[in-house]
């Protein structure tokens, strides 16, 4: 037995096939649900403009479903962690991913400026912690040097894109490099991804795990620095 109460689960695709078919029949004769359905559709159009949705859907054709993305992260995270561990174990001065091109380094510097005082963070020597701690209001200043094309992405909680250089706000080009200055405005984990590549670097359009997979696939070199903001 279906009723108007099934509109939301129907629209959310939460009904079984049979129950959805029943609701469609109900919808045919229920003007109240027809109007409400239009409202739901319009609401969706507005929600599609949300930054979260926009980021997720910009590459809809090439993107797996949200559940599949979480599975991808499950698989990708250990691989990246293993790669980082191997690189550190070999005593490299900085952790580099991507194709095996030893003559194409990505040089990254990260400073945290607190009340006008700059502090160098995670300089890249072997064994140094990769993470840093900052406070709301501090300025993160990151510079990347390396191959012909360079980019800096900043993600919040590994999911929300905060800004992306070279086109985002706070980005500037310096001789042979690219610099980002970002004042952190929320507590949580910021991930700064410094990238250099012989090929043009795509504009980020999805969650961090997906984008790392994309740039690794084209042989770009990148480093990740985490900053925990309190």
């Amino acid at each position, binding site marked *: 037995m279906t009723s108007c109460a099934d509109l939301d689960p129907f629209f959310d*695709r939460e009904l079984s096939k049979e129950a959805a*078919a029943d609701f*469609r029949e109900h919808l045919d004769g229920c003007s109240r649900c027809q109007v409400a359905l*239009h409202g739901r559709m319009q609401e*969706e*159009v507005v929600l599609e403009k*949300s930054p*979260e949705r*926009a980021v997720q859907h910009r590459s809809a054709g090439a993107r797996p479903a949200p559940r599949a993305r979480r599975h991808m992260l499950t698989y990708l995270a250990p691989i990246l962690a293993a790669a980082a561990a191997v690189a550190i174990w070999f005593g490299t001065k900085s952790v580099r991913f991507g194709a095996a091109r030893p003559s194409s380094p990505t040089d990254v510097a990260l400073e945290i400026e607190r009340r006008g005082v700059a502090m160098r963070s995670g300089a890249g020597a072997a064994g140094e912690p990769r993470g840093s701690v900052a406070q709301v209001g501090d300025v993160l200043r990151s510079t990347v040097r390396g191959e012909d094309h360079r980019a800096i992405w900043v993600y919040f909680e590994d999911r*929300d894109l905060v800004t992306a250089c070279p086109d985002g706000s706070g980005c500037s080009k310096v001789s042979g490099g690219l610099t980002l200055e970002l004042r952190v405005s929320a507590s949580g984990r910021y991930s700064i991804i410094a990238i250099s590549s012989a090929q043009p670097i795509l504009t980020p359009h999805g969650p961090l795990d997906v984008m790392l997979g994309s740039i690794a696939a084209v042989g770009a070199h990148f480093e990740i620095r985490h900053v925990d903001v309190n």
Partner: protein
Amino acid sequence: VLTARRFPRKLLRERIEQVEVAQPEPKNLEDVLEDAEPTLRRLAQRMCADSSDVHDLVQDTFERACRHGIPQEIHCTRAWLTTIMHRLYLDRRRAAARHPRPQVLGDGPGIASFEQGVPEPQWKRITIEDIHQSLAQIEPVYRDVYVLHAFEELSYEEIARRLSIGRITVGTRLSRARKRLRELLVQRFGLEDEP
């Protein structure tokens, strides 16, 4: 706590501006259709029983839009296309009920004249920021479910696991959140409420 942590307001504002700057409303019909296609397809998937129906509904919507062009008074083309799709969907359902086999719809009596008279939906005045502001006034117990569903696009089952509540409770809270959101928007913008 959940909402505040996931959507720091300043970050959200910055990102909204970025998205809006990067994606201005297209004016050329071809661009409009290309821009709206993913949205319309996702909406059709919510309503139609199978993929061929989804494809047909999106194509019919585009065909209808191409035939008549974008009316001068329309500013939010996605909303306009969504209204066309909604009406076409209902018309297709009626046609399917009349005919055992689905037929290609012509200009039947129910759909011949609506394009010119399609009013731009009042939702055109609502922005994503308005929704966030209204959400802030909703009880957290409902808001959290709405946020997880609307922005993270989690299923009822996933939300139930995340919040350690029952799947039916998720549905109930989501419906109440939507109802409350509409009430607030009606109050603020004078939307026509659902009957």
